[in-house]
């Protein structure tokens, strides 16, 4: 099926070329980082995880969201999603790939990466994260590819695929749970030290991921003859609506606990993010933008007419995606490090090389996504024609 990706329009090749250029730029700066060290980033002694790990966290969510298509289709026999589950699975593949790349570019000694396997350490959450991410990547490639291949040949998928599909459902939950456990089990970090972190991560994932899927469905429909179908998109929109509401609810629970208990270790980080602390407030405008976007999206999503109108739905999805990206991709990680354990403030702003490397990793993800989607749409067009 891969040959479908080798034939495409001029637009297709231009897009791939543009991505390749971004990858090359990112790779060039990554070589510089490799040579010089992580000193070329904006990270510091106090903010030791920055943009890379934040993108990783956000993308784990996007990857996990494939389950929002797989679960209704395979467990509830919701046939409307049958056409597009593979779209979700391949989005998961490219997202997990980006997650892994973000972990690798964040390592100080990437050549020693295999030490995690040579000295397996089950008490470290990173060990489990490696297992669940690799497993999820493997599951989604295998399932997506086989089901698509069977569909193309007009036969039922192989029997052994079914159990893997059922395993992939809790597995999707596990990748974001373990990712939350990376943070929420650390004793000195009040911002993350909350049992609701994993549920909140999942809620935001099931909002941002399906929102992105809707946008992808619009894009695919524009450029190919493959249409996900209004019904599927509308069901996804409802999922986005519920998940965005759940995410906001969980967030407000956090705010209540911090604000009412008034325990400084818990309030300080939220105060820094939303109001600034001791005159430092680099993220304040971002965080309020995030809140505004999420609230605007919720309004658009819960009004039936707005949700059913594809233009307003498109806006709502962009708002959800960007709003949650700011929350997880900017605030969540550096916010946990500011103030530091000695209650001192070192702010964090990513540097230009850091941002270019990040864009490079995203370009790799989009390249893989484009190629996989080209195969999918090629097969679907072939079947339709």
């Amino acid at each position, binding site marked *: 099926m891969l*040959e479908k990706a080798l034939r495409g329009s001029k637009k297709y090749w231009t897009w791939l070329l543009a991505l390749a250029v971004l990858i090359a730029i990112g790779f060039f700066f990554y070589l510089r980082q490799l040579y010089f060290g992580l000193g070329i980033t904006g990270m510091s002694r106090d903010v030791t995880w920055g943009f890379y790990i934040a993108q990783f966290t956000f993308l784990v969510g996007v990857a996990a969201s494939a389950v929002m298509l797989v679960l209704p289709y395979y467990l509830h026999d919701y046939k409307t999603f049958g056409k597009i589950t593979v779209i979700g699975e391949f989005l998961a593949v490219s997202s997990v790939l980006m997650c892994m790349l973000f972990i690798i570019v964040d390592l100080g000694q990437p050549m020693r*990466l295999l030490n995690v396997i040579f000295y397996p350490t089950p008490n470290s959450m990173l060990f489990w994260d490696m297992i669940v991410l690799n497993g999820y990547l493997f599951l989604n490639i295998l399932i997506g590819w086989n089901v698509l291949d069977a569909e193309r040949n007009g036969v039922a998928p192989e029997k052994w695929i079914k159990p893997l599909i059922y395993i992939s459902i809790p597995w999707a939950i596990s990748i974001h749970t373990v990712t939350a456990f990376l943070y929420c089990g650390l004793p000195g970090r009040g911002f993350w030290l909350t049992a609701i972190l994993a549920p909140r991560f999942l809620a935001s994932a099931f909002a941002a991921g399906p929102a992105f899927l809707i946008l992808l469905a619009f894009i695919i429909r524009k450029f190919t003859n493959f249409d996900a179908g209004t019904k599927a998109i509308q069901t996804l929109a409802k999922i986005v609506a519920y998940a965005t509401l759940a995410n906001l609810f969980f967030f407000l629970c956090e705010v209540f606990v911090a604000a009412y208990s008034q325990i400084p270790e818990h309030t300080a980080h939220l105060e820094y993010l939303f109001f600034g602390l001791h005159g430092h407030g680099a993220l304040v405008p971002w965080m309020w933008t995030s809140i505004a976007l999420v609230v605007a999206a919720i309004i658009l999503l819960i009004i039936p007419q707005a949700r059913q109108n594809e233009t307003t739905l498109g806006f709502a999805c962009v708002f959800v995606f960007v709003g949650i990206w700011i929350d997880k991709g900017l605030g969540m990680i550096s916010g946990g490090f500011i103030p530091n354990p*000695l209650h001192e403030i070192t702010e964090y702003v990513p540097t230009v090389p850091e941002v270019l490397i990040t864009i490079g990793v995203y370009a790799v993800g989009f390249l893989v996504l484009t190629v996989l989607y080209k195969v999918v749409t090629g097969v679907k067009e072939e079947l339709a024609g």
Partner: protein
Amino acid sequence: MENSRRRFLKNAGFSILGVGAGSMLIGLSAHTSKAVSPDAGQRPQFSMGDKAMEAERWGMVVDTRKLNDSICRKMQEACHSIHNVPEPVGESAQRDQIIKWIWPTEFQHAFPSQEVEFLAEDAAHRPVVVLCNHCDNPPCVRACPTRATFKRERDGIVMMDFHRCIGCRFCMAACPFGARSFNFRDPRPDIEDENPDFPTRMRGVVEKCNFCAERLAVGKKPACVEASDGALTFGDLNDPDSDVRKLLAEKYAIRRKPNLGTFPSVFYIV
């Protein structure tokens, strides 16, 4: 046509997988053969030197009443010079990408959750020296994915293997005391006077205070203790007759963030 191409791609894919699996097997077999090789039993056994200082659990008592700026500077200089800690310069200092093993701070920063309102002026601004607490229940060790940081069974010192560390900085997120530093760049050019008896580090690894394990091995007390003019006392916390235990029995001492359950081995008399 379509089918043969597919078959070709499938075959190519399997071949690649096969090569990968094959090389892994070779790697594994090489590993096993090494493990059963005759010199496996003759791995170097490290024995303690005659002069080595031993303890069940090393600990420290800091008498903050005896600290002042010049003593703190002396302690930091003693520690950083023998451990080849680079002097922060230029951009790395600006960005706070510095290395520190021991450093003075104020009471409110050393004990942020144990705020004392209306603390006497001199106590509030007197320097409090902070370093790795060598916790009895260290969260950094729990977090490390490669066991590059570990608690030495013999004496409870929390140590680093600079050659195993992958630089993920999970330990730095896990440490509730900000005791760890990361080599954001090659530290060697910034070491003024290199001590050949202690390894320098490379970029991309984490480091921190090691309670001068290398000095204890030859019967010397930690460098900061020697430079402290009696402000720091070092000894075995599990020995009721040690200097540290006597001091703790006599004076009321506190630890940093005791509510987190890490059981620091560094105590403070305030």
